[in-house]
């Protein structure tokens, strides 16, 4: 574990998401009124403004919307990890999230490729959802 690495600090809105990652389950909020799934966590639906929602597990499957290969240690705490692939992942259920593509060479990553979630534990409470080729 790299202790210098910036860690998410779960708050009122996000703690269920991060608890899910710790339990190796990707969870999104589903609006109780219009049933739209959303990510980043928030207490109000951006489609209908309902404040009623439930957390629901999603498949963790998706496609690469786009990506970039970080080849330079722009962030000092990630310098030893370059090169790595940052990507925007469109989940099958709709929401999009920033993540990393692991489990293949950067040169193998393509827009549109199918990926699935996997979790990397960074410490006792935080696991990050990464994605790998499906």
């Amino acid at each position, binding site marked *: 574990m790299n202790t*210098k*690495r*910036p*860690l*998410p*600090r779960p*708050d009122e*809105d*996000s703690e269920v998401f991060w608890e899910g990652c710790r339990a190796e389950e990707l969870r999104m909020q589903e609006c109780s009124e219009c049933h739209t799934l959303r*990510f*980043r966590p928030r207490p109000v639906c951006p489609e209908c403004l309902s404040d009623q929602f439930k957390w629901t597990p999603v498949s963790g499957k998706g496609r690469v*919307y*786009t*990506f*970039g*290969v*970080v*080849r*330079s240690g*722009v*962030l*000092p*705490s*990630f310098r030893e*990890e370059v090169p*790595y692939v*940052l*990507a*925007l992942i*469109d989940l099958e259920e*709709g*929401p*999009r*999230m*920033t*993540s*990393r593509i692991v489990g293949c060479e*950067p040169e193998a990553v393509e*827009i549109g490729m199918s990926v699935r979630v996997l979790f990397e534990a*960074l410490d006792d409470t*935080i696991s*990050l959802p*990464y994605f790998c080729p499906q």
Partner: protein
Amino acid sequence: MNGTYAIVGVGETPVGKVPEWSKTGLALLAAKRAIEDAGMNHKEIDGVLTSQMGGTFIYSLEVATLLGIQPRYTTVMELGGATSVCMAQQAMAAIDAGLCETVLCIHAQKQQTGPTRPRHTPPVDRGFDEFDRPFGHPGAIAVHAMAAQRHMYEYGTPNVAFGNIAMAMRKHASLNANAQRREPMTLDDYWASRWVVEPFRLLDCCQVSDGAGAFIVTSADRAKDLRKAPIYIAGYGQFHPHRFISDQHADATRLGAHISGPDAFRRAGITPKDIDVAELYDCFTYVVLSELEDYGFCEKGEGAEFVQDGQIEIGGRLPVNTHGGLLSQGHVEGMLHVVEGVRQLRGGEVEPKRQVPGARRALVSGHGGQMSTHGTLILSRDEP
């Protein structure tokens, strides 16, 4: 707006490494130069806008007070790289509403020398930092690199397009005495430049700079009594599509310009072919390409052709960033795009080799965050 408004004064400080001036000092120097350029008494200024620029509590009033100004209207604005262009619009709206008569708009930054903040301090906060940075997301460069990658995928845009943009900005900066990077750049230099976040090389990225700029907005009536020819704000628009590019509705291949641009052209009663010079926000090369498309200077997907063969250089079909832009003049967050647009239209205020002959209309853009904010100004020598 009911009234007609103009920019009547502009000021610019040295750009690049300016170790002897503090950030607030640079803001004051730019303001002083803009006020002198307008030929005004600074006590006549009754509106002050500043960018947030990492400043302290009620920062716009701190700057006003240090200048000896007690404003009827002041506020801080924070729209990233769109701030300066949007400050001009905020100034017009404030005057139009009767809150004040003359607004001084300032942006300064100190990122090259002097005290600097740490890049990040864990643990991190919500937003960008909670759902992006823990993955090793380095910020703006990765956002724009991913957008460029998507554009390349959808339209077949080649890397050389980005190199052509970088070279054009450098060529213009080489003609600008107040530019941070004036040495020539060839396409070979571009290819040899190291990857930072692929598909971006180091030469796709803007400079890191000290510097400041300022401009003054007032009514067309008031402008007529001042020292320099007024440069009218003939068109304006803003569109802010998302805070995070990871929002599922964000379109990485299109900027807010696709809305703010048509709004600005409609208000000005002109079309893209009427523009003589464009000062386009250029934090990364790709953004210029997308702006050329989203403003309608060419069709979507044809930006790579548009930037070939010197077409965006002085003497080409649409000179872009005649000061060298953020890519080569220096990064003063778009403020100097406004200053340069005004100077080009006044005529005779920049080095003769980088003057667009007879320029009458300029488009100036600002763009901020994760392709989040966008603002447009159409400036004109002729009263609308």
